[in-house]
Each structure stands twice: as C-alpha cells, then as structure tokens.
C-alpha cells in the first residue's frame, strides 16, 4: 500500500503512455486514462487475486487459533472468526472505507488525522479505469481494503481466546474495525499526517498488525489470564489441542500474505510484485529458521508451535518494508523476527500476560520490529520517523482499545464465569461441542 496508493508506479505509467501514444488519438476515453485498458484489466485482476488471498488469511487465523487452544473452546473460536469476517466486511462498507480514505480531512488540515466521506459505498462517476489511474476499480479498492480491515480484529481474537464473552468480543470488534482501525489507517494510507511526514509502512506491519496487536494487549490486560495458567507454583502450560490445525493455519496465513503484501503494490507491476513475493517468502523462511534456532537453543527442543509463530513473525516483520529493503535485508529481518517472537512469548509469559496463541508477540512486537527495520535497512527512510509512527499508532490504538474493553467490562462484562471457563465456552456460549459424539465414539 504505502504512498503509491491510487497512483501507479511511475515507470509503469510512463511506459504505458509511450505505448499508447498513437492510439490515444483515436480514443477519447483513452485520453484520460493513464494506462491501456489491457493494463487496467491485468492490474485489476491481480488485485482481485490478492483480495481472495487475503480472504484466505481468515481461514488461516481460524485454524491457527483453534489449533493452539483447547478442544472445549474450539467452537467459540471458530464462531468468532466466522463472525468477524462478516462484521468486518459489513462495517467497512458502512463507514470504515470512507473513514480510512476520506479524500479530504476534516480535522488536522490537508494531511490530517480525521476525515469522513459519508456512509455507504459511493463509486462516483467513473468507478473504472478513471478511478485510480487504471490500477483497479472502485469496487476492487473497497473489497481489497475491506479484507484487510477484518484481519485487525481477528488478531485480537486469538489473544483473548478461551475466556472472553462472545457478545462483548463481537461488540468490541465491530466498533474497533468500523471506527478506530480506519481512522488510524487514514493517517498513513489515507494520506494523512504520518504519510506527509514520510512515515513508511508498505503493507501494514504497524497499520494492521500492530493495530491488532495493541488491541490484543489491551484485551489481555483487562481480561487477566486463563484460570489455572499462573498458579502460585508457577506457570502452567495449557496445550493447544491440534497441531495439524495450527499448521494448516500457518500455511494458509503465509499463502494469504502473498496477496497481503503482493496486493499492496496496488498494481500488477511485474518487478515490484515479484520482488515483494521474494522478500515475503524469504523473510517467512528466515523467520522459521530463527524461531527454530531460538527454541532449540533456549527450550532445548524444536518447538512446532514456536516455529509456526516464527514464520508469521517473519511475515509481519517484512510487511512494512517488503518493497524497499533488499533480499539479504529481508532474510535478516525475518530471522531476527523469528528470534524475537520466541523471546517475546517467553517474556510475556513470565510477565503473566496470557496470550494463548502468541498474537501479541507475532503481531505487535514483530510489527514494531518490522516498522523500525525499514528505517534501519532502507536508506530512504528514517528510523526516527518510523518510531514516531509506531508511537502514534501505539498510543491511539492501545488507548482506544483499552477504552472500549474498559467500558464493556464496566457494563456488560467481558469475561465468562469461572464455571463456564472450566466447562468450556462451547457448551455455555454455543450449546454445542466441537467434536460431538467423538470421544464416546459410538454412543449413537
């Protein structure tokens, strides 16, 4: 995404103009478009492919989170993930899109920090080739961004799993995704004040992952740990119930990331998209190696769940700079992210912050790392500006998430009862079990 939003990479546009030189004389419509109809179509097609890839990430999150938690809460987690994508898409259509890309800012001047282009979707006169200089249609723009929006809430889901009240979580998600995530997003991708300042976050290490991560942290602080996690006798492990499910989740997330980062080029520009594929894949691979090395060294065993986190850590890490750092830098960023995530999981646990799936470590901690890494590994960006961005988002996201969760806690409550937690949320919240009739395998 980044600054190129609504603009095709210049080289591409120039080339296209040259190419179309003689043709534009005969086509009035073409005079306005920066690219040929063919280029427009391929750009748009790639963006739609990227859209369904990002959609796949929601299945990835659902699987990963369900796999890393207990069987008795699996229905609840699957339900939350199913509801979030629905809530995310609908609220983004209602107001999120127009808050994130307001066109003009109301507060904060030209490149400000709050604007709103009105409720609902409004494609305007030319939702097609004239919309974004031939990069994609209005509808593509909306649906691609909408898929992004829903991921921010999904990140929270894993961290607060196994103890949060379903209704409170849904209310939180709706508000956060509909209002706070897009406002924050407008500061950068909506061409707000951070964008003007030179802050760079290609595909959302900060705007999406940290945004989710800060909210996860707020939720975990207000909820407290799962029963029995931290006993006077020490920290207890609460094992995830299905490693195959968790592994499926990781692979699908990685798959989706090709669209998350690759689509953030905002066109099918061959060099840029393919380069982003390379940095993304190598950072994920390096994240796996980093986490494998770290867990083999520290825990003395190659921990699968940590290694899965490692790949995601690498992916979150590279997300901010996938198009502006070199291949070697991408590997280093990913490898360090893989190490960071293991350390962070261990430290958060020592700090008695109970995050069942490691969402805070993966998305918040590595999101910050990735954003700062742009300042370190790319000569064109300043680490100070990056830090300003990180802090701005941190304050805004954490405070707003804390406020929403806090108000919910004070009113309808955010945590299920002790007996419900013991028995599992599936039975009390949903009245059903994830593996019905399976354990007493033949009683029907």
């Amino acid at each position, binding site marked *: 995404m980044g600054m190129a939003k609504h603009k095709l990479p210049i080289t591409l546009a120039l080339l296209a103009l040259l190419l179309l030189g003689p043709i534009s004389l005969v086509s009035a419509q073409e005079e306005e478009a920066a690219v040929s109809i063919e280029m427009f179509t391929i750009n748009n097609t790639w963006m739609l492919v990227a859209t369904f890839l990002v959609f796949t990430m929601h299945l990835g999150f659902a699987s990963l989170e369900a796999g890393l938690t207990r069987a008795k809460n699996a229905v609840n987690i699957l339900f939350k993930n199913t509801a979030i994508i629905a809530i995310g898409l609908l609220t983004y259509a209602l107001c999120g899109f127009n808050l994130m890309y307001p066109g003009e800012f109301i507060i904060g001047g030209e490149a400000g920090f709050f604007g709103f282009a009105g409720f609902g979707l409004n494609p305007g006169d030319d939702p097609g080739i004239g919309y974004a200089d031939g990069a994609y249609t209005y509808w593509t723009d909306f649906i691609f961004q909408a898929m992004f929006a829903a991921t921010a809430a999904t990140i929270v889901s894993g961290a607060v799993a196994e103890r949060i009240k379903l209704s409170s979580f849904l209310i939180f998600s709706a508000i956060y995704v509909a209002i706070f995530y897009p406002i924050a997003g407008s500061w950068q991708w909506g061409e707000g004040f951070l964008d003007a300042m030179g802050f760079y976050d290609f595909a959302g290490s900060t705007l999406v992952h940290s945004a989710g991560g800060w909210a996860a942290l707020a939720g975990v602080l207000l909820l407290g740990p799962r029963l029995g996690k931290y006993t006077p006798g020490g920290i207890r492990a609460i094992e995830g119930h299905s490693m195959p499910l968790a592994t499926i989740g990781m692979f699908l997330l990685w798959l989706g990331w090709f669209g998350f980062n690759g689509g953030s080029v905002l066109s099918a520009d061959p060099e840029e998209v393919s380069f982003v594929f390379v940095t993304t894949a190598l950072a994920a691979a390096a994240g796996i190696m980093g986490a494998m090395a770290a867990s083999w060294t520290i825990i003395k065993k190659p921990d699968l769940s940590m290694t899965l986190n490692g790949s995601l850590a690498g992916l979150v890490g590279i997300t901010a700079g996938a198009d502006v750092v070199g291949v070697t830098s991408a590997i280093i960023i990913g490898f360090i992210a893989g190490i960071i995530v293991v350390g962070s999981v261990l430290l958060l646990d020592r700090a008695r912050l109970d995050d069942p799936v490691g969402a805070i470590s993966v998305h918040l901690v590595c999101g910050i790392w990735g954003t700062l890494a742009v300042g370190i590994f790319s000569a064109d960006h300043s680490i100070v500006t990056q830090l300003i961005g990180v802090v701005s988002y941190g304050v805004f996201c954490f405070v707003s998430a804390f406020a929403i969760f806090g108000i919910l806690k004070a009113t309808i409550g955010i945590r299920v009862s002790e007996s419900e937690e013991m028995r599992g949320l599936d039975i009390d919240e949903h009245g059903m079990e994830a593996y019905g009739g399976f*354990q*007493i*395998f*033949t*009683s*029907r």
Partner: protein
Amino acid sequence: MKLIIAYIQPDKLNSVKQSLFEAKVTKMSVTNSLGCGQQHGYHETYRGVDVEVNLLKKVRLEIAINDEFVKPAMDAIIKGAKTGNIGDGKIFVLDLAECVRIRTGEIGNAAIG
C-alpha cells in the same frame, strides 16, 4: 453394596439408560471400551494389508448400587441391551466394601444413590 460392571453394544446405551431410569437407577458411569468376546471381529484392509479387528467397540457401565437394587438393575440392563445376537454383552457383579460421597462425606448405603 455391589458394583455392577456391564459391557453393552454402544448403540444400546440410550435404551439401557432408559430402562435403568425406569428401574429408578439413575447413577452410573460410562466409559468406552474395546471388547474381545464371542462375537467375531471383522476384517479391515489398509493399503492392501489385511487388518483383523477383534477388538470391537463396546460401552462399559459401572453402577454402584445397594443390594436390593441389584436384581432390578440387572434386569433393566438386560431389557435394554438384549437383541439375542452375539455381542450383546455381559454383566459382572462385585462386592463393594465402601462408598463415600465426596461432597457431603456421607458413607455406605446413604452415599450410593
């Protein structure tokens, strides 16, 4: 006091529970089990290799019960589980020396029901 252990066909669990309830026996514990008895197993194949399955799925009931209820309970189990086919199952009865209800500390006959 006696401890009744009964092995029945899994699909009879509901009807056995039903007839036990009718006989006023409402406390029991149920476990999965694999049984090897007169009933022949069956052959599975997995990737072309024959698998002789002679451990069949059964359900195991455990019922602690006062002496006077033993006969009605056994009859109820038979009523609910019997089809006349091999594999219907067995009932075993053991002497129960003591019984305690954890919640109240009651012991013996009082605790059982």
